[in-house]
């Protein structure tokens, strides 16, 4: 997508930007997951009901949608995870959830209306043990977010609806936020 014209930010090139969440951030939650080391990787193993809290800022180069009600969500939260169990062992499935809330300065934390909750479908554990699976857990709704907002997220493993629970716990190795980044052309003269 080129030659994007945003009335807020002018002309530029649209590309993907990422906010990487340091993996050790997952250690904090109401019922935090257990750290797992598969050197040199560090991960966190979630039993059903475990959760992690983290927060990030919506970056200054994020493109704000001009008409968010008619455009798809651009800002998504992704995880990479695996399970030290093959799918054939127990035909296990897992389900992930994010609940998020966003606030600007002078707005109230946990103010009604600027929050969302997404959950995935039941996802089969990968065919191979510790095979890395990438999952988009959910999105931030464009009409609720602004550049510079602070976004709080609760990432949880929740019970599946139909699938069998794997014997071993799924492990998250990476988390990031993906967004549309506008690289402006040119510069302001003096």
């Amino acid at each position, binding site marked *: 997508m080129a030659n994007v014209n945003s009335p807020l930010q002018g002309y530029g090139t649209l590309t993907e930007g990422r906010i990487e969440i*340091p993996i050790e951030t997952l250690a904090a939650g109401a019922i935090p997951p257990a750290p797992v080391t598969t050197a040199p990787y560090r991960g966190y193993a979630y039993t059903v009901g475990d959760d992690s809290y983290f927060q990030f800022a919506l970056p200054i180069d994020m493109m704000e949608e001009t008409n968010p009600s008619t455009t798809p969500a651009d800002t998504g939260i992704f995880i990479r995870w695996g399970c030290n169990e093959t799918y054939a062992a127990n035909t296990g499935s897992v389900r992930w959830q994010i609940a998020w809330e966003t606030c600007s300065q002078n707005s109230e934390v946990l103010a009604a209306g600027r929050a969302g909750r997404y959950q995935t479908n039941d996802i089969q554990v990968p065919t191979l043990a510790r095979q890395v699976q990438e999952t988009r857990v959910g999105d931030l709704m464009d009409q609720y977010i602004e550049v510079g907002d602070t976004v709080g997220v609760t990432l949880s493993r929740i019970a599946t609806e139909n699938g069998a629970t794997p014997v071993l716990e799924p492990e998250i190795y990476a988390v990031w936020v993906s967004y549309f980044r506008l690289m402006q052309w040119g510069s302001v003269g003096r």
Partner: protein
Amino acid sequence: MVVTRRGQGDYGYQDTYRYDIPITSLAAGLAPPDAVTRAPYRAYAYTVNDNSLFTVPVPIDWARNPASTMDVYVRWVCNENFALATADIQWRIVYDTVDQNNQVLGAAATTATLDTGDVDIPVTALMIQETNIGTIIAANLAAVDTIGLELWRIASTTTPTAEPEAIAVWVEYTRFISTYQ
């Protein structure tokens, strides 16, 4: 996201960029280093065989055509001057890279161990030294891979009495900024 993993365009520019590791990431490892405060700096002191484990992405803007390398740097100090015991230290990184649909440490594992060799501690106590610990070769990298990294202090020829303290760690890479896609 629609643009994820699109090929980078033919037009753009490259520059050297870096991905900084939060210093608190050093706190976790198989034998983690001790936290040290050099106010206002926060650091981690490594005895021999202490190590930290953390995760780094291959950034979305990493130059992939041709693929470029990634270099792991540490800035460190030692509260001891070189003249005292002509001491040295040695750093090590162990890394593995994995993409989705591959196994962690599986058949396609791209693990490597890189050592610095002996590095003299600085002439002055607490003087910052910047060390390139090693290069992750381009052949082991692909866009948006997840990299598992271990940072170790390993044995050297003449061990200082004071422990070296890492105060910053980052990965340096070539960034490609498309101006057309």
